[in-house]
């Protein structure tokens, strides 16, 4: 059996060229960092800082030291080792969606805290999902919505959490919540319960709050998702390779800064590519070119930086789960899986990550199971070759009653929601298409959803943090 079922979009020389260009860029031109304290810290740690224009260059030896100190592997809450020991991937839902497509209809509504709660409970119930993120609860004060969302996550899932803070002001409260959940700073440092997303302001800038995320994540030993979100043709070059390069520079910058602040801080390289539609100006995260870019960027980061990777694995630009979304997510997930991506983002999202769909979420878990089966390959050994079975077969006989068949009959994947009955039976049951059958599945799951049982003191403490955040930040 081929152990490494992988797709190489870049040759070794191409990876090397991009790597060299990343090092050259960061050492000769650098990036802009808007955080006075971070500038001082980076300056002390060996970066070349121009305090007037806030441009920071990183000498090659500093970059190389950072690449040596960044962990190549670590464990997320839920005992999930990343990269996965068997070469599989983890799924994460997305952050920040503001609307929800109601299952069984084409109606959308703004996400509320109650929706976020149900969403997280659904993520908890789906075994395929390893990491949970929350949509944006629009009925909460805008200034504290991310804080409310993290509390909902802690109250409704035991899985590892991913958070994208929205402002500098909310960061301290987010870490306070994490500290309450962990029990102490020491306990939090020992266990990665939350990955914080720090995003470059593409191209090549780092805003105050994203630098603060890096600083606080380093302080508390929580993984950083080093995110670059270039839009080819807009904020990055129109060509795939150019966008991959720009994204790699930004991710490397975050990696280096994190290691300069606190060596050993876990980093997940997260190229989350978009393409500007050259006809409409709309951003796409699911076009063929974008998917190729994601896969190429993942391959590059794995081979050059040797850190875990995250990219869109289940996105769609369609506004509903339909043929387009199915084609897009199948192409995207397969490309990035073959490239070796560790975390698939965008699970359950439609409309270019702007909207959540419980039906799409269930679709995505089905595709994930199929994909994991593909990745696990075709095992060839004495047993699976079934040499004896074949040799002993009477011409015209069958295998159905063989012990060998009985032994293996449950091993292959049956995709639960796919049609397996004849048309007459399917018709008699209402001729339901996949979408309708998935809505039924969602309704079944919904009846069994439940929150986590948190200790009373933890719950109380989190309520107080929320109250304080609302009083101080909400307008």
């Amino acid at each position, binding site marked *: 059996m081929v152990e490494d079922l992988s797709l190489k979009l870049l040759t070794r020389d191409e990876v090397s060229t991009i790597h060299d260009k990343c090092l050259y860029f960061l050492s000769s031109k650098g990036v802009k960092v808007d955080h006075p304290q971070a500038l001082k810290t980076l300056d002390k740690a060996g970066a070349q800082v121009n305090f007037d224009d806030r441009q920071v260059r990183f000498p090659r030896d500093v970059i190389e030291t950072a690449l040596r100190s960044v962990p190549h592997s670590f464990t997320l809450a839920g005992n999930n080792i990343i990269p996965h020991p068997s070469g599989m991937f983890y799924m994460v839902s997305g952050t*920040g969606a*503001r609307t929800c497509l109601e299952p069984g209809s084409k109606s959308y509504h*703004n996400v509320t805290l109650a929706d976020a709660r149900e969403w997280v409970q659904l993520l908890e119930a789906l075994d395929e999902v390893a990491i949970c993120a929350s949509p*944006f609860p629009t009925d909460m004060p*805008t*200034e504290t*919505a991310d804080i409310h969302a993290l509390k909902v996550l802690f109250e409704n899932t035991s899985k590892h959490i991913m958070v994208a803070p*929205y*402002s500098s002001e909310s960061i301290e409260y987010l870490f306070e919540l994490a500290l309450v959940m962990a029990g102490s700073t020491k306990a939090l440092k020992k266990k990665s319960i939350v990955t914080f997303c720090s995003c470059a*302001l593409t191209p090549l*800038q780092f*805003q105050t709050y994203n630098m603060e995320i890096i600083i606080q994540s380093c302080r508390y030993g929580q993984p950083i998702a080093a995110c670059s979100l270039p*839009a080819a*043709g*807009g*904020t990055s070059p129109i060509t795939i390779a150019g966008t991959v390069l720009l994204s790699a520079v930004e991710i490397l910058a975050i990696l280096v800064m994190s290691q300069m602040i606190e060596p050993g801080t876990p980093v997940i390289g997260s190229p989350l590519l978009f393409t*500007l539609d*050259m*006809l*409409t*100006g*709309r*951003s796409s995260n699911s076009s063929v070119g974008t998917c190729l870019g994601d896969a190429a960027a993942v391959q590059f980061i794995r081979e050059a930086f040797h850190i875990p990777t995250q990219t869109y694995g289940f996105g769609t630009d369609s506004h509903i789960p339909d043929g387009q979304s199915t084609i897009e997510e199948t192409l995207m997930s397969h490309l990035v899986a073959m490239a070796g991506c560790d975390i698939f983002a965008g699970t359950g999202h439609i409309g270019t990550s*702007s909207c959540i769909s419980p039906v799409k979420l269930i679709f995505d878990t089905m595709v994930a199971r199929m994909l994991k089966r593909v990745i696990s390959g075709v095992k060839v050994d004495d047993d699976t070759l079934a040499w004896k079975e074949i040799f002993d077969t009477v011409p015209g006989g069958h295998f159905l009653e063989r012990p060998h068949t009985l032994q293996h009959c449950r091993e292959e994947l049956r995709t639960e929601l796919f049609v397996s009955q004849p048309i007459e039976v399917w018709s008699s049951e209402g001729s339901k298409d996949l979408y309708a059958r998935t809505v039924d599945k969602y309704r079944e799951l919904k009846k069994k959803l439940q929150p986590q049982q948190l200790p009373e003191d933890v719950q109380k403490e989190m309520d107080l943090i929320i109250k304080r955040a609302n009083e101080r930040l909400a*307008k």
Partner: protein
Amino acid sequence: MASYKELQQNLVLGQENKVEELISSLLDSGNNPREIMEEGLMRGMSVVGQKMKAGEMFLPEVLLSAQIVRKCMEVLQPLIVGETLSTALAGKVVIGTVQGDVHSIGKDIVALMLQSAGFTVVNLGADVPPEKFVQAVHQEQPYIIGLSALVTTTMPRMRDVIEALRRSNLREKVRVMVGGAPVTQGFADSIGADGYAPDAISTVDKAKQMMGQP
């Protein structure tokens, strides 16, 4: 002999040198500069707009044609005596990303599209406080101000701008249009904006509609 049709065609094709050559030839032949602008360049851009809507021209191609028009206007403008060119164009728009939000790309694409459609655009940049919008309305007297936000937490600043205009007694003097990835028609209505557009192309149509133009 150069013709307006040829000028339009080369503008659509993005042939800058040829367009400049044709304009020189038309001027040398005694054609009225204003007529060259209207019949050659403006009509040509109108064809560009139609082709874009039909999916035949992509954004960078549209922007190239618009760039050529801007360069040619530098030649023609001094020759169009006694008229303010702003009356020849679609209208004036002040545009900016609201305070606290540093994202520019969407707003810049909208600005370019509006310019391509003949609007005069004053781009205030990103992270623009309400006072600066108010000052721009005083100084530039635009018909429309466009407010952009990409980050959800900065959307409330759009309401702040509208309030600031109201306090300065300027609210009735300008139309407010809002846009950006998290912005919706519902949000626009809730803050009292006059218009909302979901993307760059429809922004141009909406702006024209707000100005009572086809």
